Structure formats: C-alpha cells, structure tokens
C-alpha cells in the first residue's frame, strides 16, 4: 500500500534538484520507476546475424554424458582403483539408429583400459536392441585367496590380468519389462605377476596345478542366452518392483582343448516399500553355477567369487573363489532426507566346488550399516561399514549396491 513508496524512495544526491511532491499515487510510482530506469545502463542487443547457438560449453558438460568429448570417471575393473580418462560419445548416427563411444582411462595403480562400444537401442520398431563392446584392460592388482569356502585369509596373494575382449548382445523386448536375447563374444586373458607391494604372488602361495591357466594366454569364445524381467520403479535407486534375470553361457578355448565350461547365473532382486516408499526392504539372491566337463578346466581367474563392496561386504574383495557361488542379501533402508538414505544390511553366502552344493547351509555371514546419497532419486554414492568374523571393511563406492541388467 502506501508502503510501496517506502520501498522505492531514495533520497536525492547532494546538489540534485528536488521535485515537487507527487500529486497522485501513480505519479509516485512513476517517479520511482524513472529514477530506477536512469540507473540501468543501456545494453545493446546481440548481433542478429550471429550464428545460432550450437551448444554452450561448461565444465559440467564434460561429465554430463553429452555428445562429444567428456571425462569418464570410474574403475578400470573391480579392485583396480579409481580411474579417469577421456571419452568421446556420439548419439543418433546412422539416421538416429546408433550411438557409439570410445574411452580410455587409467588409475594411479597403473591399471588402464581402452574401450569402444556401439549400441542400437531401438531396432525393429524399438522392440529390438543390439549392443557390442570391445575392450583392452590391464589390471595389475587382482586378489586371490585360493579356491574353496575354507581358503585361509593368510593365503592372500595377487596377480595381473590383461584382457582383450569383445562382447555383443542382440535382444528383443516381447513385452513391457521383459528382455530376451543372445550373447556372444571373445575373450583373451593373459595372467601374470601382480603389482601389490608386499603381497605375495599367486604362484608363490599356490601350486600351479591349482591355478589352471596361470601360465597361459588363453583365448575363449563365448555364446549364450539371457532373459530378464525388470519392474523396478527406478533402476538408479529402486524403491519398488523387482529385477529377475538369468544368463546361460558356454565358454570354449580357442583350439587348446583344455579350458571349457558352462555357466548359469541367476539373480532376483525384490524391493518392498513401506511407509509410502520412505523405507524399503531390499532382498537379493544371486547364484553362479559352473559346469566343467571332465576333460576340461576352469581357469582360476574365471572362478565365481564372493567378498567385496557388493557381495559379503564384511570380507575383503575376492575373498572366496570356486566354481559356484550363492549370495543372499537383505537390506533395510530408511530415508534420512530425500538426498540420503541410511541402510542396515545382512549378507550371507558361500562358494562351493559343486553346483549340487548350492544351498543355504554353512553360509559365511556379514552385517553392517551405511548411508546412500541420492541425486534426483538415483544413488550416486554409498559409504558402508561391514563386519564379519574376519574383521571390518569400509566401502566407499560411487554406484548402487545391486548390479543392474547384465
């Protein structure tokens, strides 16, 4: 009301000629506007002939996932340390059908990789999809404790892997949430001595006879089938729904006739919301079963494994290796605020030499608690402490706990 004038009136500068009092409310307002207008510097309009905007650059674009050059942050491979490197992405090529990207990254632990991927996510009226990834990876710090559920902690050792690979997936979406398809590819693995200082080499701890493939560079061909049903409400940080997936693959070495096996992986994730999805009970069951023919072997570096930031979190990474593994996880997550959840969890699992031994007896267990940070609903960081009879582990990770679609 009259206070309008109060907000606007500014005393004139010394020596400035004063105006007669305003005679109306409208005049009072007009005077204030004119006074303000006199203090606004004139700004010329931009050149009308200037070329149109083609995307304004800001440093945030580098990690935003946009087209062109960017920065990729993440791991080279599990346990190899955080890595950083350039990435080039282009989407919508070939009349909008294809996306592709190429990246390189390296970590302070001297792990590095280069990758190139192509995807066509919407083939055949968007029902079909095709993805392929080629990579070279140098991981010098893989941990190994020996095979079997009773492998002693003292047998801590390490080794190096160099991998060249190509993996392709061709899939179809017959119904909402459902994907089925085939997978195929090539993998070349060259193991060698690890670079963890003060840690024994695998060959110093174990008999070479127990380390199938340790002295060979082996080529594998792989082919298989997969199916998944994904009804999670938000794959980046689900609070409801579930993910159920199964994948069968056959591996054969490239002419050596020494290595070969079939592997079946199954995973079920279920998210049960309570209190309007502020709290969630998350359950996960994951099993890996491997069948090795009598005249073939399973390389030690392709054994199923447990332990680390995703599975049996109270144990060191790659703590257990064997042909088969089963892990069950239960988490209770509750909301602290929209950007952060707290979590209490319990993991139980084991590795077994025979797939027939996959059951829920004699499980290793760990429990813990932590926090999850969310941005726009997606978990982007988690900090967890887990306890087991072998000690305490603290994990800081920049991804959600459960894996997404394979």
């Amino acid at each position, binding site marked *: *009301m009259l206070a309008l004038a109060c907000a606007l009136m500014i005393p004139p500068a010394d020596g400035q000629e004063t105006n007669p009092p305003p005679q109306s409310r409208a005049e009072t307002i007009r005077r204030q506007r004119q006074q303000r207008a006199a203090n606004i510097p004139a700004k010329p309009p931009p050149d009308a002939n200037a070329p149109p905007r083609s995307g304004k650059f800001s440093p*945030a674009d580098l990690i935003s996932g946009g087209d062109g050059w960017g920065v990729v942050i993440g791991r080279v491979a599990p346990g190899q340390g955080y890595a950083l490197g350039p990435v080039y992405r282009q989407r919508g090529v070939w009349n909008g059908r294809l996306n592709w990207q190429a990246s390189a990254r390296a970590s302070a632990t001297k792990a590095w990789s280069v990758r190139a991927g192509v995807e066509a996510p919407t083939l055949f*009226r968007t029902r079909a999809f095709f993805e392929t990834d080629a990579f070279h990876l140098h991981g010098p710090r893989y941990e190994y404790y020996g095979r079997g559920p009773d492998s002693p902690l003292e047998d801590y050792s390490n080794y190096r892997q160099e991998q060249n690979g190509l993996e392709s997936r061709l899939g179809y979406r017959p119904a909402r949430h459902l994907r089925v398809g085939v997978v195929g590819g090539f993998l070349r693995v060259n193991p060698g001595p690890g670079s963890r200082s003060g840690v024994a080499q695998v060959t110093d701890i174990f008999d070479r006879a127990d380390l199938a493939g340790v002295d060979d560079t082996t080529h594998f061909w792989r082919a298989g089938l997969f199916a998944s049903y994904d009804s999670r409400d938000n794959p980046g940080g689900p609070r409801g729904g579930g993910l159920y997936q199964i994948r069968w693959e056959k591996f054969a070495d490239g002419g050596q006739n020494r290595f070969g096996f079939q592997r079946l992986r199954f995973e079920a994730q279920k998210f049960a919301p309570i209190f309007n999805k502020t709290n969630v009970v998350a359950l996960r069951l994951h099993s890996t079963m491997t069948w090795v023919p009598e005249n073939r072997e399973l390389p030690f570096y392709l054994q199923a494994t447990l332990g680390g930031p995703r599975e049996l979190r109270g144990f060191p990474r790659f703590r257990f290796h064997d042909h088969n593994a089963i892990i069950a996880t239960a988490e209770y997550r509750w909301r602290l605020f929209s950007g952060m959840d707290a979590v209490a969890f319990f993991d139980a699992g084991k590795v077994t030499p025979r797939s027939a031994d996959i059951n829920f007896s004699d499980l290793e267990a760990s429990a813990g608690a932590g926090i999850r940070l969310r941005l726009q609903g997606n978990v982007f960081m988690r900090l967890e402490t887990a306890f087991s009879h072998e000690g305490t582990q603290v994990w800081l990770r920049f991804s959600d706990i459960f894996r997404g679609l394979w």
Partner: protein
Amino acid sequence: MSREAQYRRTFAPARQAASRPWCAYSLVALGALSAVLPAEESASPAFFPDDPLWAEPAPEPVGYVAATTAEKTKAVLKETFRSPAKSTGTQAANVNTLDEVPDSPWFTNRHRQGRMSVEAIAAGPGSENPPSQESPWQIVEAKVEGVTPGFTIEDEYGRLYVLKFDVPAYPEMASAAEAIGARFFHALGYYVPETHIVRFRRDQFALREGSNFELRDGGFRPMRPRDLQELLATVKPGPDGHFRAVASRVLPGRPVGPFRLEGTRPDDPNDIVPHEDRREIRALRLFAAWLGHTEIALFNSLDTVVESGGIPHIRHHLIDFGATLGSGTTEPKDPHEGFEYEFEGAQVLRNLVTLGIRPPAWARARYPEMKSVGRFEATLFDPKAWKPRFPVAAFDHATERDNFWAAKQVAGFSSDEIHAIVRQGKYSDPEAAQWLARCLILRRDKIVRAYLPALLALDDFAVRDDELRFADLNEVHGLDTQGPYHVQWYRFDNATRQQQVVERATGFALPAIDAPFLAARVSGRADTANTIVYVRRTGSTAEVCGLDRYPPRELADRSAD
C-alpha cells in the same frame, strides 16, 4: 528481537507522529519514510486522490533485456541446504490502500474481485485457442524431456504450442495437473500460458524442413523422421490409437528467463519492489499449498518482453504446472513433499536415531490407487505447516495480512467452480476427478479456517446510504462469527495523519461532522482482531479509500501504549 519490538523499531517515527498508536501500518510506514525523504516528498498526504490504486500506471519502457539462464541441478543443490528465513514482520510493499494488489505485469485481479463465470474459470487463459487439428502440426523443435518427448509445434494458423506427454506408467497424471494448475493460477490472478488437453493421431505430426532436434547438451541438429518415430515410441497411445498430451501455447513476447522469488530484476525499471515484499509472491505459498505446487520455488516461471500500448516491458508468468496436485511430473509426488523441505537437519537426526521405525505422519498418509492422481490428499494437509521443496524467503516473510489476503482468494472459489476446473483435466476415470475436487474443497476449507479468523474477517467495505457496510466472511464461509461488531469513528487529517475521536460516534452510520476524511475502528469480540477503515468524503459522496487490518495481539500493544 521479538516481532513486537521489530514493529516498534520500524514504525516508531510514525507512532510519534500519530496521535493514536493504532494508526494504520501504511500511514505509519509512510511516516517512517519521512526520515529519509526530502521534505517536499515526506509531505505527501496519506491518501492521494487516485487511492485506492487498482492498476499500476503504464510501465516504463525497457531497453534490451538479456535472457537469464538457470542451471537446475546447481540450483537444486544450493536450495536444498538453504535455511528458512526469519520473518521480519515487514508488510507487503506493493498493495494499495485497501490492502489489495493492483493490476500489474505480475498480477491481474480476476476471480476474487470480478467474479468470473464458471465457464470463464474453466476456460482459463484462452480455451478458444487450442491447436487446430484441421491440418497437420508442423514440428518446429523436438527434444527428450526426461523420459518423455517434448515438441514445439505450429498449427495451421501459425500458433506455436509446446506439447508434453504423460509417462506411460502414470497416464493423464502430469497433463491433467498442468491443465488444472494453469487454470487455478490464472483465475487467482497470475499470467500463465494457455493450456489445452489434446488428443490426436500419429499422422497429426508433420516434419517440416528446418525442424530442430535438441540434444542433451543443449545443442541442436536437424530433426529426422526417425527421431519422431523414436520419440513417439516412448509414449503410449490409448486403445483407440490416439495420443494424449497437454499443449501449452508459447507465451507472447521474447523470453528472458525465469523470475526470482527475491530481489529485483536489475534490468527492469518497473521492478521497484523486492519480490519477497510483493504480496502476490508471498501469497504464492498459500496458493501452492492449496494446489500442491511444491516446485513453486524453482524456475517454474518465465519473464517475457511484451508490448502494451507500444511500450516494451517485462511480463512475469508462472509456467509448468505438471508438478501440481499429486503429480511429480514423471512420477507421483514424493510423499514428503508439502510436509518437509528437501533437507531439514533436525528431521534427519530424528530419522537416523529412530531407524525409520517411527516415520513422520506423512509417511503413513493414504492415497487412492489411481495412477492419474498421484499422491494428493486432504486429511493430513495443514496449510500453516505446508512447505515447498525448498525454503523461500518471500514465503517466510508472509504476514497475517498476506495470508489473510491469500486465503480470501482461495475462499473465492466455490465448490462448483473447483469441480469445473478439475473437469478440464479430462480424466478418463470420473473417480479421479471426484477425488481431486473433493481434496481441493477440503484443503480450501482448511485454509479458510486457518487464516481468515487470524484477522477481523470483514471485507468489501463500502459506504451506502451514509452507513459503513461490509461482508462478514465468517458468515459467507460458515465460520464462527467474530461479532458482535463495534465501531468507533475518528476525524482523520489526511495531511498530518492525526486522528481525533468523534464523541458518541459508535454506530455504523457515518458521523454527521464536517470532515473530508474519517476513520472507523471496527472491532469484534474483545479477543478478536480489528480493522481501521478510512472514508473519504468528496462533496456529497463518501467512499472507502483505505483500510488496515490488525491481528489480536496488536490490541494488546495498543493498550500498553
């Protein structure tokens, strides 16, 4: 400092100037002004001949106005950890002498003052201009907005619209919220885009030469037929093959970015009142509470440079109502929205300690199993406790007067009018529309009960037949009366703002004295608020030219004085 103390500090000069300490805030404020004004300006009368001003004068022309940009992610992070502001008790600075908001490029008095017809309310800002479907729509631009496509199209009459779709998992939810929210805010007085629910077949689109496809980084490339195919594959047509979308007509003028809810726009000469002191901005909290517009704090606004009478000036619009009602645009509202800010330290600690086992009441709210509604309810709704997602200083500064004014606007919507607007959401499920309308009516009633009795709920003061008349909002809205009402008349000096009691003038009839200005102190029961009404006599006519409303505690203040 207590709020009362703040009043004293702010208005002390006027209290000295006025013979009665209950002098109107406005007059007091003007008196305070005299301390900083040149003598001739401080000599301004309390009421000018053009008071009460119902429309701001024609704007000053703007020069070139550069568009402001807003980075949403950065802003969300910043706003999340902003602390709520402490109320200063400062009254809104852009109201007229009747404590109403004059028409301006921010606001136009529509329903509350002019009583729009039900048809006009339902029509919103322009239901006569939906995009014509006689000829295909030419796609001007397309992009992916989150998980759904967004198109800018041109119809055969050259009118531009922005088309937005619902996510397949929540059909009708965001589009209906957009259509309904726009109509409510339009009737409340704000500038909003024309918004229409449209249904069309795939062949309604035509890709014209020069169409742009917006990339994620904000750049553009030429749009291809396959882009259209892929964009439409992400949305779901109905069983009859028709798509449903909401079409918002592109606003007139050149867009120059969103307006902020505090401060002023430095390149706008007409923006002379800090936004946090604008009544219509402060009142947005209550309107947003009513309509569940929790996103009100962030960028859901747009300034455009328009011309009126050949004068270029900035008009301020509210846009994007897809996050009103129970909709969170791509999914239902997060259940905490409206109840908690995104971050509240004390609440975080409480949640941590209780392990989530004793969740807040909102976590137990019950919502209907209707995907088109999302999360919207009225049982737990508390208008005084309602919060947007992020603290807004303007909302925290709102006074009883601001909230009273806002509540009056909300109360101005009849149940039939609410039903009529909700029908414009064009829900396929009549139950959804019923639920929403029922919730809005219940929420309206809660707002009315919470804020009208805070002041003396009398309004529409007028002088008829030499008597002071008014509407008792308590009666109109079924509240307990604050009466019986008493009047004490004063002679009022417009130049000095001094008042003098008129003896034995305690009825509603104007005292038969020779005075160009009168003031009437209208009070209810001893514990209720009171209002000062100013009457101006010009010749044989008398008219109400101003009023001031006081909460009950101001009575105590006056007694102390």
